[in-house]
């Protein structure tokens, strides 16, 4: 499973836990649209910390950074470049 698929599956699982089985694209807003909320954002944060070594305490956290699959991928790329 590649990076995008892994993130997509993770988000899909979070949405399913909330009873949301609507489709979403890589550019779909998942937090600002209200489909997922702040507590779900924590799950994504933990995944990004554990799996990709991103330290939000250092770079600063904003829900917009993880609002879509594309945004998350971009964040991972930026963090990779930085380290």
């Amino acid at each position, binding site marked *: 499973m590649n990076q995008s698929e892994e993130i997509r599956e993770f988000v899909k699982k979070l949405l399913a836990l909330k*009873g949301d089985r609507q489709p979403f694209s890589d550019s779909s807003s998942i937090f600002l649209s*209200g489909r997922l909320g702040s507590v779900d954002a924590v799950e994504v944060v933990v995944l990004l910390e554990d799996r990709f070594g991103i330290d939000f305490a250092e770079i600063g956290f904003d829900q917009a950074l993880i609002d879509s699959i594309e945004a998350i991928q971009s964040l991972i790329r930026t963090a990779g470049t930085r380290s």
Partner: protein
Amino acid sequence: MSISAPAVTAQPASGWANRLAHLRLIPRIETYPSVVLFAQTDLGKLVMLVLFGLGLAYTGKDWWPLSIWLTLTTFLPDRRRLIVTAGTLSLAYLTQPSVHKAILITLILVVAGVLLRCAALWPRSLYGRRPLAFLLSGFVTLVVLASCISADATIYQPMWDFALTLATYVWFIGYSLLDRNAPDRDGFTLQVGTYRPFWGSTNTPFVKGAAYLRRIEARHAEGLAVTQLKGLKLLTWLIMVSFFGKFYDYCIYDRLHVPLFDHALSLSVSRAPLPWYTCWASLIAGFLGSIISITIWGNRFVACCRMAGFNALRNTYRPLSSRTVAEFFNRYYFYFKELLVEFFFYPTFLRYFKRNRRLRLITATFAAACFGNALFHFCRDLTFVQKLGLPGALVGFQVYLFYCVALATAISISQLRKRDPNAAGFIRGQLLPSVSVALFYCLLDIFGSTQRNYPLTEHFRFLAHLFNINI
């Protein structure tokens, strides 16, 4: 947790329960192409503004200044954010009872500007890294100093006036400080537009800060039409809720003569309690009444915000359908929860106890739902500090402090427990969890008072009396 359109359902329930869950009293007009097209024409915009203005007039007296600013944001979308600032400032100054108050607001805006500028100039300094902590600790220090000054001193009244006015702006300034590092951050002029914006707000920023407004702003004519149609729908919904609220009050209080909760509590304090079942009725009636009330006033702000072209999420969205304590907290008063999450939860969660997942979540939850919640309400009701003195106000705060501890404990447990999305059936999957959650918040409401009227023991006495235990 989501509070927007997608309904949160345990599992698709069958039959009448499913149909009831998906019943729509107001059609989704924003999905009708012909309606959206019409809403983009000048005539369509005018029709929407008139209908919205009528709705506003029914729900409040401030309909005409609101209608003026909404007309401007509708017909001048390229200048929307500037118009929001102009509307916000005009209402802030024109509604003040005295020049003195207007000067205070100016002073606070200057302070906000200086704080933002300093954070931008020295991002690596101690202040630049933690401006929010400086803002809040500075505000608390100001309150402590003001409470130490003798009432006869010349500086006493000006200092309290400043503290009391700052208390109404502090969280708005906080959102601006949170936005300081965003690459696309707004200048101070646009930030000011979010400080008690013209569509209305409490001390809780509706709808959050400039960063949020940037992201939810309608970018094109179709987006604006859809957002405004959603605003109109929301206003229609809250008018329906307000009709229901009047009917509810008539049935519960006028016909059934259920006593108000405050009255039932005061009788319990004076050792002449009402029968336990009447106390239950009073508590439940008050709890449901508070849901109706917050749905009306909170969503009115959001409806106006949508009409101004910002697709904000609702403030209250089906709280009684919540299956967990944490979900209810999210659905009941979304913008207050967001404040606690952004100012207290995330900063704590991202910094502390990273190796222990549970401890990390519990600490962050307590930072938000307990500490942040208590701090917000203590700062909101500063007049008690002025009236009772700091020690008296702190002692009197014991009841709400207990509320915060109990709430944070329950939310922590709720978050740590595994959610069961596959709980089968309507009764086990939806009804029982929802009733349990509502019952918890209903009982917690006994301790939800910030009025400092009675000690904590009196609230416990009332709780015990509900179960026919008289202590």
